[in-house]
């Protein structure tokens, strides 16, 4: 069973960000039979995320969400776009993850915005952030503006969702980077050996 976690940073309830997350989850489930998907809604963790940035440790509920993200085989990260980028809540959640938490992990990036003029935020803001974290980013990003939710008759959004979800599914099936975070202490690193073999 492949485990996928969808992170939704939508701030309102109901939220179009969450709607977009749900559409992506549905598409991934449809295209990959053997998959379990769980949605982590950051709005419910907002206070705890702020606390963790101040104290350096996560509350049990936030730690549970972090553990799910780290253990997931793949991620769907969905955020609203405000003022040309992701909101602080989304970044703060990323900030409380360990630096190596997402190494090699397939991640589908998606965003919702109030205007189509935010559409490149996925490429100029989200993609560099996840590149820094050494995640394996799905080529197609999915941006949805109010126009996309309307009835333009072409279902362009649905097609982008299916394409991106399909790309995530195929990354989960094979490729990968073979890399991941490690909790192990390397007792044979140069540093460790310099302790037990003082000159």
């Amino acid at each position, binding site marked *: 069973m492949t485990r996928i976690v969808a992170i939704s940073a939508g701030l309102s309830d109901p939220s179009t960000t969450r709607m977009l997350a749900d559409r992506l989850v549905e598409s991934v489930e449809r295209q990959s039979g053997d998959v379990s998907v769980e949605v982590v809604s950051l709005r419910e963790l907002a206070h705890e995320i702020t*606390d963790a940035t101040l104290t350096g440790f996560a509350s049990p509920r936030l730690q549970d969400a972090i553990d799910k993200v780290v253990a997931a085989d793949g991620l769907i990260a969905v955020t609203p776009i405000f003022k040309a980028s992701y909101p602080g809540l989304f970044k703060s959640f990323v900030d409380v993850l360990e630096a190596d938490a997402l190494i090699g992990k397939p991640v589908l990036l998606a965003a919702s915005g109030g205007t189509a003029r935010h559409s490149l935020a996925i490429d100029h803001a989200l993609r560099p952030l996840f590149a820094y974290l050494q995640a394996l980013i799905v080529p197609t990003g999915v941006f949805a503006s109010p126009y996309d939710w309307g009835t333009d008759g072409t279902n362009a959004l649905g097609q982008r969702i299916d394409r991106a979800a399909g790309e995530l599914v195929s990354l989960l099936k094979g490729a990968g980077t073979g890399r991941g975070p490690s909790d192990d202490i390397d007792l044979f690193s140069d540093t460790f050996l310099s302790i037990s073999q003082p000159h």
Partner: protein
Amino acid sequence: MTSMQFGLFTVGDVTPDPVNKTIQTEHERIKNTITIAKKAEEIGLDVFATGEHHNPPFVPSSPTTTLAYIAAQTEKLILSTSTTLITTNDPVKLAEDYATLQHLSDGRMDLMLGRGNTAPVYPWFGYDGSKAVELTIEHYQLLRRLWDEEVVDWEGQFRTPLQGFTATPRPLDGVPPFVWHGSIRTPEVAELAAFYGDGYFANNIFWPKEHYIRLINFYRQRYQHYGHGEPEQAIVGLGGQFFIRKNSQDAVREFRPYFDNAPVYGHGPSLEDFTAQTPLTVGSPQEFVEKTLTFADYFGDYQRQLFLVDHAGLPLKIVLEQLDLLGEVLPTLRAEFDARRPANVPDAPTHAARVAARNAAASSLVEPVETTDGSLVEPVERMNA
């Protein structure tokens, strides 16, 4: 002889009192620290440890000056540090300063080494912060040799080489100060403590216990690996913090404004969440005793428990009241910890006990003693060193 040591550790911060809207001067803060240390001895505590910082709003930049001053005014208290910066201090000066303190205090001292947590300190002292772990290892290895060997030839990465150097004064009775290594995130420091059979200290104040359990268990396993004893015989110290009043609700009400404005966790989680998730107790003396006793369940039976009391802008008067209350429950804490303590768990280290152990080991040996760096030293030479 006391199987477990209890004491205080201070950061030495000058923090505004958010209730009385006052702030201590540096002079007041330094003098108050002395008062608190003397109070620690008065209520029957075993240890007083001071931090080392080189930037405002902290005052303790010269720990051995302060500790020697306290040693002169106390009789039983063990003076220690929390922590001494092994990264940015010259190991030669550390060997000299702390050996001098050892003589002045008649052995009533030890020290806890740490990396510090202030990045700019490194360049202020001419070091590169990205080399913190390497500095810790090299500096400690040199410090060890300066105390363990009479004459040292040494060359390393970070310091001028030494040729035929003897650090003076030599350690009191030929037994160097006991060393603790404090760390809350670095397994290499736990390894260093384990390799030398030194103590390991987790400050245990800001984060949930799970974080510290992993490092302490690692240290205990490596202590065994290097042949110093069983894992449960490793020398462990822990921090802790509390605010107590006879009535639990009074403690919560009085401490809340200090908690809410504290430099480390203020303006973040609620007092209730933080006490539930970390070792902080805010409540009655009984609640404090109960929570402190759980530390041994999580970390194993241990040797030293230090408490942070003078922080968050608390005025001296309240700190001293806290110590009076601590003094009242201290006999209970000692009795309860002793009652659960297996016989094979070693007592907390003292200079007298370490001298006795060294003498016992030396008199049973006819062969030269192998020191930690592998060189051979005649037993008699070590005894008289």
